[in-house]
């Protein structure tokens, strides 16, 4: 009962004009970053992170949630109309949307994408509200050896989900773990890897790592391009979007069926819970399942609304699932939730099994923001701003990237009022640029950095309570469960790779 009233209180908190303003502002920013090719909602949230020092934690979380949701749906417009997915999660939408656009049915495609996003996002948020308290109860049963195995499971799944580049995923993750060990030891009061400098004693802050990895490296990547606009204006002239385009025909919605929407939402939510999967994987798995169970699988890839509905429903539903491991176990599975974890840590909060009950008043508005963003803001924004999206996404690159550079660098300065943090952001930016160029997943670097300290702490605590005997990881039931789960995932994702029926490699 307390939980229900707490969750309802979250919706009431959105009535606060300041909170509401940040939710709408966050949604618009997320929409812009999701729609412009090359920018992502992760970058938007990374740029927001420094500002959370001055923001109330609830307001910051509300803004993060609306950016996350908006970033997932807005990429579908450019994916459909000009075949350039604004966000990686819209790649499957481009597969079906662009052929529809070419045969003059782009309007229908946009409508199905909007409806799928709305349904998926709302169901994902509802599932989060229902499942997160249950997951928190389960999390209470996990003891120290189990926590180690759970984090190890998360890291291993993150690595093996980098299909085709597991070695690179492993290197990036371990490098993140190494960076996290700089500073005071997690168990003893001993400074490590400071190399005689005082500035490293406190360790590396998450902020310069995030800003460097996602913002500065993006500047360096974009500096390679010589075009003056983000999208070629000639492409935009060819594709016109009208307001009524966002309302899909009812007959086609019936043909897709409520079951397909529901199934896609559940798939997206489940994929979101998995570490390292993300929106593109959710869209891929849901699309593949939709194709498998379709009466007309031959229509896929040629402009089928079913595929659009399945992909968009799943990638928005993923937003809800991604918050479950972060809030209940303190384990973020993707960069967005890792940054949200950073917001909580900056405000002195540490997610875990008790977090859902003790701090529900702080996080319930975030759940409400996810739900309201999906149910109201997605259709409203697409309906009102949709026709102008193509003009908005074709903006001058000099203005865009200069603005990003200033927000990123001055934002890094905010944490400690020192240019050392800005310099660190630049160093990590250059490092991430090299890694990205060689296709090392920088997401793994961030997640290794975030999860590394907990992995070490639980490993050492577990061994110390068993006199250094590692057998405790195999005799403790909770730990054994996660080791077995790791083996199962390893078997299905590495040894027996899933068949993709001609869809290509799932996006990492």
């Amino acid at each position, binding site marked *: 009962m307390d939980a229900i009233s707490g969750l309802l209180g979250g919706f009431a908190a959105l009535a606060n004009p300041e909170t509401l303003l940040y939710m709408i502002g966050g949604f618009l920013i997320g929409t812009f970053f999701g729609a412009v090719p090359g920018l992502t909602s992760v970058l938007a949230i990374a740029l927001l992170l420094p500002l959370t020092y001055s923001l109330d934690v609830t307001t910051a979380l509300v803004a993060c949630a609306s950016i996350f949701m908006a970033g997932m749906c807005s990429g579908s417009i450019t994916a459909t109309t000009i075949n350039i997915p604004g966000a990686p999660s819209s790649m499957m939408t481009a597969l079906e949307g662009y052929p529809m656009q070419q045969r003059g049915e782009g309007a229908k495609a946009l409508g199905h994408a909007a409806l799928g996003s709305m349904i998926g996002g709302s169901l994902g948020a509802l599932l989060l509200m229902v499942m997160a308290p249950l997951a928190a109860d389960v999390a209470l049963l996990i003891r120290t050896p189990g926590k180690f195995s759970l984090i190890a499971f998360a890291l291993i799944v993150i690595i093996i989900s980098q299909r085709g580049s597991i070695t690179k995923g492993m290197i990036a993750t371990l490098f993140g773990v190494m960076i996290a060990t700089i500073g005071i030891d997690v168990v*003893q009061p001993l400074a490590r890897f400071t190399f005689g400098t005082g500035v490293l004693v406190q360790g590396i802050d998450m902020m310069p790592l995030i800003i460097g990895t996602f913002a500065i490296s993006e500047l360096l990547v974009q*500096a390679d391009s010589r075009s003056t606009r983000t999208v070629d204006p000639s492409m935009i002239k060819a594709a016109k979007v009208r307001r009524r385009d966002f309302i899909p025909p009812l007959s086609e919605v019936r043909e897709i069926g409520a079951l397909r929407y529901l199934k896609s939402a559940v798939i997206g939510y489940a994929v979101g819970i998995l570490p390292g999967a993300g929106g593109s994987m959710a869209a891929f798995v849901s699309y593949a399942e939709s194709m498998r169970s379709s009466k007309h699988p031959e229509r896929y890839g040629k402009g089928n609304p079913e595929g659009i509905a399945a992909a968009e429903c799943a990638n928005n539903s993923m937003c809800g699932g991604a918050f479950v491991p972060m809030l209940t176990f303190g384990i973020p599975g993707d960069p967005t939730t890792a940054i949200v974890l950073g917001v909580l840590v900056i405000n002195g909060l540490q997610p875990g099994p008790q977090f859902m009950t003790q701090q529900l008043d702080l996080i319930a508005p975030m759940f409400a923001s996810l739900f309201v963003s999906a149910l109201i803001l997605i259709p409203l924004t697409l309906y009102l701003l949709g026709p102008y999206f193509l003009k908005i996404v074709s903006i001058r*690159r000099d203005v865009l990237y200069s603005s990003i550079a200033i*927000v990123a*660098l001055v934002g890094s300065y905010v944490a400690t009022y020192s240019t050392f943090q800005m310099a660190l952001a630049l160093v990590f930016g250059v490092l991430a640029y090299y890694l990205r160029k*060689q296709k090392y997943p920088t997401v793994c670097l961030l997640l290794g950095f975030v999860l590394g300290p907990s992995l070490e702490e639980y490993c050492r605590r577990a061994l110390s309570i068993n006199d250094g005997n590692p057998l405790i990881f195999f005799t403790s039931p909770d730990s054994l469960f996660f080791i077995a789960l790791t083996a199962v995932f390893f078997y299905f994702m590495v040894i027996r790779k899933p068949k993709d029926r001609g869809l290509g490699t799932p996006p990492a």
Partner: protein
Amino acid sequence: MSLKPSSPHSSRRAGLSGEFFVPAVLALITLVYLISAIQLGPPMKAGNMTASFFPIATAIIMLIALSCAMIHALRGRARASAESSSIDAESHDEIPSGRQYAGLSLGAIGVVVLTAGYLLAFDLIGYFVATFVYVLLLCCLFGGGFRDKWLTKLIAAAAITLAGYLLFEVVFQVRLPTLWSQ
């Protein structure tokens, strides 16, 4: 991202040095890290893990993974050079890849140099002057030089500087360094 798409063969050759170079540099960093970890003390004491155990274990696994990556890169280079020798014999019409220095394109080097300069100037001459100049130069870098639409770039630089000031100093009350506060 270059303007002209390069052929698969040229891109493979261009990326190959980086494919070996990146893990090699990471291996050097890891070696320094491993030596520092060993200097922290023995990994086990009285049956318990010490502060050096986890870093040593991480570094060893990392070195193994990096060795695999370097071997993979070397094998790839051998394959690529064998293929390219046969292709070169047939045609010479490949598109040259963009100029790179230490794996960085000229544009990326420009951003790094400008940003490093901005960091130095930020504390010395304050937010306003440093940011205006930095944004103006970045606009030139991303917008195809200063001559093209220079007035727009000047206005954009002034507007972004002012917007940044309003966002951080006024809205979020972050005290930014100014020329007159030095």
